[in-house]
């Protein structure tokens, strides 16, 4: 989970996702002034039958496979740790899309599309700002591990209470 120079990161927590897709609507709008689930850099996969939802977006992988496979070196990392594309070098071969383990790169009607954590807009990610359920969070990276550790610790402590089995 790479972080930007300020130590902030975009956490993705599917357990909290309620499937409202506000992230996708906000994303498509702030970047392209349109609304569309499929026109967004973040997509919410919905299993209607089982009521399960997962937001999917570029997590700016540390050793990013898309950067590795790009035959023209069009993909690289900017000063803020965001995986970015040099449009002049890009030949549109789709290798990055085919390789991305998260399915987070797409070629839509507007061309190549991938989350840049709103760096191109010069601000923190919009999606996290309007995710009311807390499934997408823009937060200090150092707190992420601490929060996770706390969750696990509480679960363990509680399971030690006498007579309080699951």
């Amino acid at each position, binding site marked *: 989970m790479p972080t930007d120079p300020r130590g902030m990161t975009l956490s993705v927590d599917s357990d909290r996702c*309620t*499937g*409202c*897709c*506000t992230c996708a*609507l*906000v994303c*498509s*709008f702030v970047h392209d*002034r*349109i*609304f*569309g*689930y*499929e*026109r967004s850099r973040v997509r919410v*996969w*919905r*299993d*209607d*039958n*089982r*009521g399960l*939802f997962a937001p999917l977006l570029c997590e700016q992988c540390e050793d990013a496979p898309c950067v590795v496979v790009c035959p023209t070196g069009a993909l690289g990392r900017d000063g803020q740790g965001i995986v970015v594309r040099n449009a002049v070098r890009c030949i549109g071969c789709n290798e990055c899309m085919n390789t991305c383990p998260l399915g987070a790169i797409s070629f839509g009607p507007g061309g190549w599309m991938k989350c840049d954590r709103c760096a191109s807009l010069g601000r923190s990610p919009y999606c996290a700002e*309007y995710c*009311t*359920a807390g499934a997408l969070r823009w937060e200090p990276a150092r707190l992420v591990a601490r929060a996770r550790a706390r969750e696990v610790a509480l679960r363990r402590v509680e399971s030690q209470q006498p007579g309080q089995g699951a």
Partner: protein
Amino acid sequence: MAGQMLFVDLTDGGIERRPVDRELLREYLGGRGINARLLWDLTQKGLDPLSPAAPLLFGTGTLAGTFAPNSGRMTVTCKSPATGLYLKTNVGSHAAPELRFAGYEYLVFQGKAPHPVYLWIDDGEVTLRDARGLWGLDTRAADRRIKEELGDDQIRTILIGPAGENLVAFASIMASIYRAAGRGGSGAVMGSKNLKGIAVRGTGEVTVADPEGFTEVALAARRALRADEYCWTRSYEFGTAQGIIGSNEGGTLPHRNFQDGRVADAYKLSGEYVSERFAHPEACSACVFHCGRFARIKSGPYAGTYTAGPEYETLASLGSKCGTTDTAGVIKAGELCNILGMDTISAGSLVSFAMECYEYGLLSQKDTNGLDLSWGNVESILVLLERMARREGLGDLLANGSRAAAKTIGRGAEAFAIQAKGLEQSTVDVRGSMSYALAFALNPRGPDHLMTECLAEVGYTPEVRRLAEDITGTPKATDSLSPEGKPRMVAWHEEIYAVTDCLGICAFTDTWSYTRVNFENMAAMFAAATGIALSGDEARRIGERIITLERLFNLREGLTREELDVLPQRMVSEPSPTLHRGARTLTKEKLDGMLREYYVLREWDSESGVPSRETLARLGLDFAAEDVMGAR
């Protein structure tokens, strides 16, 4: 915003696209409003709701697909097979945005397919496909089969279950399996057309006329709702059933078919309990509240049950109203209603009606094929739900709705049918609230809170109390047993509900936030989205136009105010023992007084409740005058 209307003639398979008329949009705002006008134009007096000629309309809200708060909804409109009157029913999920991303805002179905079909909307490509293999399947199985057949699990479906196929009077249309356009039997209309469902995939876009203006208003509204304790925290944490405990304390949680209004262990039906033990939050498109639940049962006799819900109405209707607080049992009953495609409100009403008939000996074990319909018998509830959907045994009789069933049973069974105009009342005990009583009586589709919920009467915050006083001009506005100011209270709520339904905004947005989403910012969002100028006052007037047109539909059918503006018999003739120590809180005289004041307020005739020609002219409804006056 360049969506189209899709006209589908199921008889000959013809599919025609027409642009949405901007003049119609200006006059009716979209969704519910445009549907109401289309239904008026496409329906003649006396039309059989289940005949091929009867239209079935789907109208997405004008803001559906955008990030306007809670805006992903759609209105289904038709003539109701339960009441024979106007029916509008509203549904969330993600179906409406998906339709708009595919390029369609309205679907108009007429005719009857020669065999079961479903409509497949794949962006620009629209085809009718054979659904003979899907007929008889529940919504869950049909949804799975369609997704497999079309090879895409991100398709959204809008389906009927076996209940709709079997023309059950309270069959619902289900979006994404579990979200219901529930009331009034629209599912039976769909079934009568041999239309099993709609599958839609939209990968396109929705645009707005003024992106900067739209962003400013819509996102400010989102932030205001998110910052509101009542809107956000309570609805996210506990869902709609957050209100169960309060209703029970107030003595208005229906128990045993509204015989009284309190149960001993109501906490087991509460949103707090359900959310803690069974369910997590789930949301419709662009929602800020996330009141939806998704429940799973992991142990006990109903282990393996999973479904969206249960909502307040499901818990009260299939729970306390049927004499049980068995949480898991009610969730199971809710799952059955969802996959069989039945309205949980009416289905619960039919069960509790049958149970009361059973209690008083109007139905015997012989009539029930051995089923023990004692209050609270969960196993019997589940069996009866299946039988209603499949029209087996007693279920066949109950599937016609409580008005028809009571008539067949006779011997006073009418008193146990908590219905008016043919629609079963939702689980609000109107004996405890005069504005609800008036709104329920006036509701063109029948007695429920989902057209006009006057929650301001409860005055749950100082801000809401102030608003209630502003609307009505009297401090008695929040005195729930006083008729004073209630006609104004109802008129205001009717209008704001109409506007939210047109825009596709969830009705809870008004009543859980009031001042945060209002006529002004809804009008501003409409104007920014469509490029059609609109003020808050104009939006309100359009709300009045829609309310009046809906009434005209019912008047055209030839009904009088005595037939239209009524409540279930029990509500006006029997006091509830749990309300004010059994005092008579609501009487026919009290209701009639409020009605008369309301007619005057609306500039309708104070005696007949028929809008005058001048009123119709003022509202731009002149076109309806001849048909309505001719029906008198």
